[in-house]
């Protein structure tokens, strides 16, 4: 009944602000990166050398595996340090954007704090493993093929 005025002991964490902003920036950046990949694919390979599926795959994610079935020269056009780091950046953005999205959804719907904490921990591990797998694929697996 009596009014409770907000306690002064509030945490002033800016985490949510940063994640909110990151989501927006990364989203736009991914669109830009995707657009650049598909433009590059068309400049290099052209519609004559790659089918639509290959172009789409490349646009979504520039890793040489995605164009190996095409008639274009994969090396050096599509397999070099630039595209490796480009891919890493894209994956970092995508994985973080996506993981944060799942975190937000969990925060919305999971009401038990303990369960939420466990799920968040699990999510963090998945995020790290995904990054690990991506680094391996981009720099090790792709390198040996």
């Amino acid at each position, binding site marked *: 009944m009596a009014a409770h005025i907000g306690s002064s002991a509030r945490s002033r964490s800016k985490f949510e602000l940063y994640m909110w902003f990151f989501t*927006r920036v990364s989203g*736009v950046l991914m669109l830009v990166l995707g657009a650049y990949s598909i433009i590059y694919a068309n400049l290099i390979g052209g519609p004559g050398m790659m089918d639509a599926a290959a172009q*789409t795959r490349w646009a979504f994610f520039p890793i040489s595996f995605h164009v190996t079935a095409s008639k274009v020269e994969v090396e050096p056009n599509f397999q070099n340090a630039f595209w490796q780091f480009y891919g890493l950046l894209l994956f970092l953005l995508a994985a973080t954007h996506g993981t944060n999205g799942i975190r937000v959804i969990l925060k919305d719907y999971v009401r038990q704090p303990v369960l939420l904490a466990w799920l968040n921990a699990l999510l963090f591990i998945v995020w790290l493993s995904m990054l690990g797998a991506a680094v391996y*694929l981009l720099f090790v697996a792709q390198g040996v093929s």
Partner: protein
Amino acid sequence: MSKLARVTLSQFLTYRGGQPMLAWLLHRIAGIGIVLFVGMHVLAAFFLYGVTGGTANTVANALTEFYESRPMQIFILFAVLYHGINGLRIVVLDMWPGLHRFHREAMWLQWAVFLPIFLIPAFLIALGIKIG
């Protein structure tokens, strides 16, 4: 006291929100779909290249078969394009709050951009037509 506070799924679904509520729902479904797809894809690739060194791998095969199926391809295309274009609408409105006034128009604009970009490739995938 705290009776009937929780909103049930049917209450959720029977609320007649506008288009933006549908957009939000699709955005979430698409987002979860992308996360699952990317997760499967990375896992499959990791099994294929990391575990069996590029040769056939049962786990990778099963996953690949699933997400390369035609409906999944269309769904992924939908998810990525919808999530991307809808996301762009939200980013624009977030950065210029004055534009919220035009949020209804923004929805129509979004459909106008999304539908052709999505439908043409989806149609081609559905018919199994390859270009190039």
